[in-house]
């Protein structure tokens, strides 16, 4: 009898222990991994709760979840703008007090701080400050941004300042992943290439041939997934320098307005409706964003080669899109001989005469194998 009672008690203990264990394991994803799972030995000065890159990756989602905030504790310039974990908010440790208002109201929100790697103390300091403010669920991703970028398939997000600086150097291709109509046509970052995410497979030929050429994808802001999907698709295609401008067009407009100094007076060529060829070449080289460059060849021809800032509307499809063409910049039609572009010019004259700034390239536009082009005046 005594033995039976003992055995019953033992069973109860085992069941309770099992329940507690189950509860702990079941809740494991909500909490930091065991410190012993980390691939490095935590230093004494480090924050008490650390997470690894897998844990961080689980919380990187677009749009960002309400109950998680990933915080970049490095200086905004130059670190954050040049590259940060997608969805991360910038609250530099050195100006933490100024950034407090960016922290969530709910003190139970999971906060994950990171900075520049295992030697960097900024995220640990900032995490302690957050805890002092009453946040109860604070972690530090100690391996930080360098570890994030080591993982295959990961990419960085960048800010508007970085996009503008790279575009000014003309050493990047900025890709608008939003639908061509109505989004891109209504407004886009000057010089951006339109490769809608929904057409990525068919239009990816517009991307540079060199797989190490820098690409920056953007779409409609922090809630928009399109640029992230396209970035992943580009990485799968083999592109090695892929970034996402997560703030997208809304952030760009807020920073630089709808239309930075892109106005231009187009000089007419000798033939009716044509653009002066010398000025056209100058525009392509120095101010490509000042015109809407519309390549009216068929899609397969366009996919083979095209001018950097051109968009493709085959002449056979143009009639259906005439009413959607923008009127805030001059339109210039191009094709290899002037035949289809001239036809396009006269189509607009007939169907949308209110568009006054419309031109076409009267001459041969010849692409060479190395991706360059040559313009030959009509003889």
């Amino acid at each position, binding site marked *: 009898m005594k033995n039976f009672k003992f055995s019953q008690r033992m069973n109860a203990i085992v069941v309770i222990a099992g329940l507690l264990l189950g509860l702990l394991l079941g809740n494991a994803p909500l909490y930091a991994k065991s410190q012993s799972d980390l691939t490095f030995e935590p230093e004494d000065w480090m924050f008490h709760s650390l997470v690894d890159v897998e844990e961080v990756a689980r919380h990187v989602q677009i749009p960002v979840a309400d109950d998680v905030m990933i915080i970049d504790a490095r200086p905004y310039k130059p670190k954050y703008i040049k590259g940060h974990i997608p969805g991360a908010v910038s609250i530099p440790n050195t100006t933490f007090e100024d950034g407090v208002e960016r922290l969530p109201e709910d003190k139970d929100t999971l906060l994950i701080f990171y900075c520049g790697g295992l030697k960097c103390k900024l995220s640990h300091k900032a995490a302690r400050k957050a805890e002092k403010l009453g946040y109860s669920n604070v972690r530090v991703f100690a391996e930080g941004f360098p570890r994030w970028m080591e993982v295959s398939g990961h990419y960085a997000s960048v800010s508007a300042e970085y996009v503008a600086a790279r575009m000014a150097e003309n050493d990047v291709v900025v890709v608008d992943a939003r639908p061509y109509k109505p989004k891109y046509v209504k407004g886009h970052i000057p010089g951006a290439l339109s490769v809608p995410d929904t057409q990525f497979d068919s239009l990816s030929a517009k991307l540079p041939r060199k797989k190490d050429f820098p690409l920056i994808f953007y779409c409609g802001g922090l809630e928009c997934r399109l640029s992230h999907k396209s970035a992943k698709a580009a990485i799968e295609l083999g592109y090695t320098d892929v970034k996402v401008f997560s703030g997208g067009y809304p952030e760009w407009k807020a920073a630089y307005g709808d239309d930075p100094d892109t106005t231009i007076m187009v000089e007419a060529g000798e*033939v*009716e409706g044509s653009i002066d060829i010398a000025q056209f070449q100058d525009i392509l080289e120095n101010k490509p964003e000042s015109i809407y460059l519309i390549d009216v060849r*068929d899609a397969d021809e366009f996919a083979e080669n095209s001018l950097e800032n051109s968009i493709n509307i085959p002449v056979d499809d143009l009639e259906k899109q005439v009413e959607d063409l923008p009127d805030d910049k001059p339109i210039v039609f191009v094709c290899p001989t002037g035949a289809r572009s001239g036809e*396009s*010019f006269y189509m607009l004259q007939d169907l949308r005469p209110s568009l006054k700034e419309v031109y*076409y390239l009267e001459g041969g536009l010849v692409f060479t194998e190395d991706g360059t082009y040559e313009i030959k005046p009509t003889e």
Partner: protein
Amino acid sequence: MARKKRFWSVVCIVFFVACSFGAALAGSEFSNDGNGRKGKYLYRKNCRTCHDGSSAAEISPNTKTQAQWQRTFNTYERLECAEEWQKMDQGDLTDIFTYLYDHAYDSPQPATCG
């Protein structure tokens, strides 16, 4: 004397009729000095809508030689799409002719997709 006078009257009438006919022919002759770029669009707008393969056979500039286009334009009343021609003025027709003639089968630049 009267017979001789009548003879010369007939000769004059025949000459006058011949000259008028010749002038009329010459007037209907199309030249390729119009605007071929505009003609390409007018051809799309006015011709291809009728020559769509059902109302009339599909055509393109290189389906005929330059001489054939000249004959076609001189005798368009006989064509299936003759009604469409009435809607266009002489300038538009000249532009279309210029496009077709300049890219005819035996032209230096027969029409391609471009």
